[in-house]
């Protein structure tokens, strides 16, 4: 189906189902239970998972396949957001023109940056991308204020021209009139499930993006990108010019980033320079490596887990911790809370750092490798003799890992 073999079709269907049922999956605890704070089924968070999933998927096409580690991909995210907000201001609050311009502009931008940075490889490439993204950030922050509105950030205002919108049009980003912020809440069995237009819009785009990335992985072009990672010398002497391949991968991943930036603006119509900062570029690197670089699902898993944990950990403040450890004697309780509060709330980055260190050390293939190991473990337990025969038990792992 859709140019995919049976295994990939099955894989894609699973991903589609998981995406569509996210409002249930991320809301496992009932409202009045103590665990409700671990629910993640808010439209905002779910959309972020989808959007950063797209960002990481695109990044993985460059980094996972060719091995070129860009430290400046947030620049394209920012370009996408600015482009989208300008479309909202000038044309219409309908999201389609915004997203299309976001993708086109980030493609142009990444062609420029990629053309320059790809003259070098390895650490020099990484530094060049980092430098150029920092430059973009500085420009957006100060010099380009007329375009970016500098520190304040670019926003949609009531007096914007919006030449395609009539007086009666929606006042929020919308899909032909259907506002992205509108939700349907389903209150059942003490659970509140939220079905949000914005989330489903992002989800559908994420599924399309995932499908395209799957096709790229399985294409001759994808094979060439993996060849770039393995042996450029051999490629050169095989009549292949690695440069246009890496540049194409760079532009494609830049377009994914621009798409993600456009969607961020669609969910919340404002764009600020900090979206281009190096920390944002580093975040997508961490997401991809944490999930499993070079695998199809890894980057999405990485993006999902980081965004979810970020949300949960940031909410845990000292009061919550005191509440949890109220059974301890006061002195000890204070000590425990003091230590743990370094890792929660504002200190979430510390936890992320630790998590990243642990994964890179013990699971170099990321969460996907962890999953594969678990599957293998269970399989061996379940069937001691001949259970490892791949012919009889098609391994679900390899179609995730490639």
């Amino acid at each position, binding site marked *: 189906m859709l140019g995919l073999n049976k295994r990939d079709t099955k894989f894609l269907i699973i991903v589609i189902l998981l995406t569509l049922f996210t409002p249930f999956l991320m809301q496992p605890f009932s409202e009045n239970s103590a665990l409700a704070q671990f629910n993640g089924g808010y439209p905002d968070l779910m959309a972020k998972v989808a959007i950063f999933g797209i960002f990481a998927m695109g990044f993985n096409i460059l980094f996972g396949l060719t091995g070129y580690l860009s430290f400046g991909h947030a620049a394209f995210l920012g370009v996408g957001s600015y482009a989208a907000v300008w479309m909202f201001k000038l044309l219409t609050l309908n999201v389609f023109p915004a997203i299309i311009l976001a993708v086109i502009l980030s493609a142009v931008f990444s062609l420029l940056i990629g053309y320059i940075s790809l003259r070098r490889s390895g650490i020099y490439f990484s530094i060049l991308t980092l430098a150029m993204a920092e430059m973009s950030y500085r420009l957006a922050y100060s010099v380009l204020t007329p375009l970016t509105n500098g520190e304040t950030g670019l926003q949609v205002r009531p007096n914007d021209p919006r030449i395609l919108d009539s007086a009666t049009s929606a006042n929020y980003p919308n899909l032909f009139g259907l506002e992205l912020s509108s939700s349907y809440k389903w209150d059942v069995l003490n659970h509140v499930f939220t079905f949000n237009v914005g989330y489903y819009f992002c989800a559908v785009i994420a599924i399309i993006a995932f499908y395209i990335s799957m096709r790229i992985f399985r294409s*001759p072009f*994808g094979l*060439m990108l993996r060849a770039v990672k393995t042996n450029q010398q051999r490629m050169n*002497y095989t009549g292949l010019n690695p440069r246009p391949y890496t540049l194409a991968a760079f532009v494609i991943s830049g377009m994914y980033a621009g798409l993600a930036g456009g969607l961020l603006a669609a969910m919340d119509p404002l764009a600020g320079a900090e979206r281009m900062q190096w920390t944002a570029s580093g975040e997508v690197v961490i997401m991809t490596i944490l999930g499993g670089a070079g695998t199809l699902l890894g980057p999405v898993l990485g993006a999902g887990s980081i965004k979810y944990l970020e949300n949960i950990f940031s909410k845990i403040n000292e009061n919550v911790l005191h509440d949890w450890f109220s059974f301890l004697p006061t002195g000890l309780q204070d000590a425990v809370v003091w230590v743990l509060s370094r890792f929660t709330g504002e200190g979430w980055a510390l936890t992320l750092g630790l998590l990243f260190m642990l994964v890179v050390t013990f699971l170099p293939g990321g969460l996907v490798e962890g999953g594969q190991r678990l599957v293998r473990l269970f399989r061996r337990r379940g069937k001691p003799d001949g259970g490892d025969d791949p012919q009889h038990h098609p391994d679900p792992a390899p179609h995730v890992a490639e």
Partner: protein
Amino acid sequence: MGILEVKNVNKRFGGLQALKDVNLSIMENTVHAIIGPNGAGKSTLLNVLVGKLIPDTGSVSFQGKSVLGCKPYEINQMGISRVFQTPEIYGDLSVLENVLIPCFAHRDGAFRLHALETVEHETGMIEMAEKMLLDVNMQDKKDMHAASLSRGDKRRLEMAMCLVQEPKLLLLDEPTAGMARADTNNTIDLLKEIKAKRDITMAIIEHDMHVVFSLAERITVLAQGTPLVEDTPENIKGNPKVREAYLGTAEV
């Protein structure tokens, strides 16, 4: 006129004249060996031929077209393939994928954005690659990780990758260096087989006289960057100048 013509090529590395007035003509469909003591400039000459080095003076033309200033991939697209002294393969990929890549390069040229096609659906390419693997006796290893192959198999794989492009000229830089006798003999047989099966010109740089005399139809002896003589293997064996410059120092 030969398929490859090298005229008055000079190449200096700082104060060292690595190639000095090199004139060489390789005839179509012959196996031409280039021998010479260590440091004679053989690898340098090869690097000039594939575009890795640009000579200071002189010209190199392949089928009447100059290759000077061309990029290695452009020279390969003209029909020159190269086997390296240490096998250069795609270690992370499967053996079949290793052979598929040159198949695509042969069909599509130096670059094509075939991002939404599917490798699995390229039956023509896959058949071509599998047939090539059969030719080098590696069909049963097609799903193996290339990095896990033995050194001899890596060399066979690299040759398969070069041959599947149907090059007009195959350049081999010490294809048996560091090989055991048995592997060396296998390689000789493989090259002989290839030669018998298709129209191909080969230029072999080799240290091992056994390999040279089993394969070569013409031999050029290089010494201190200059061709000393060029002749048939029989005449080379009996040439006293060669003995003095080269054979005297190596066991035959």
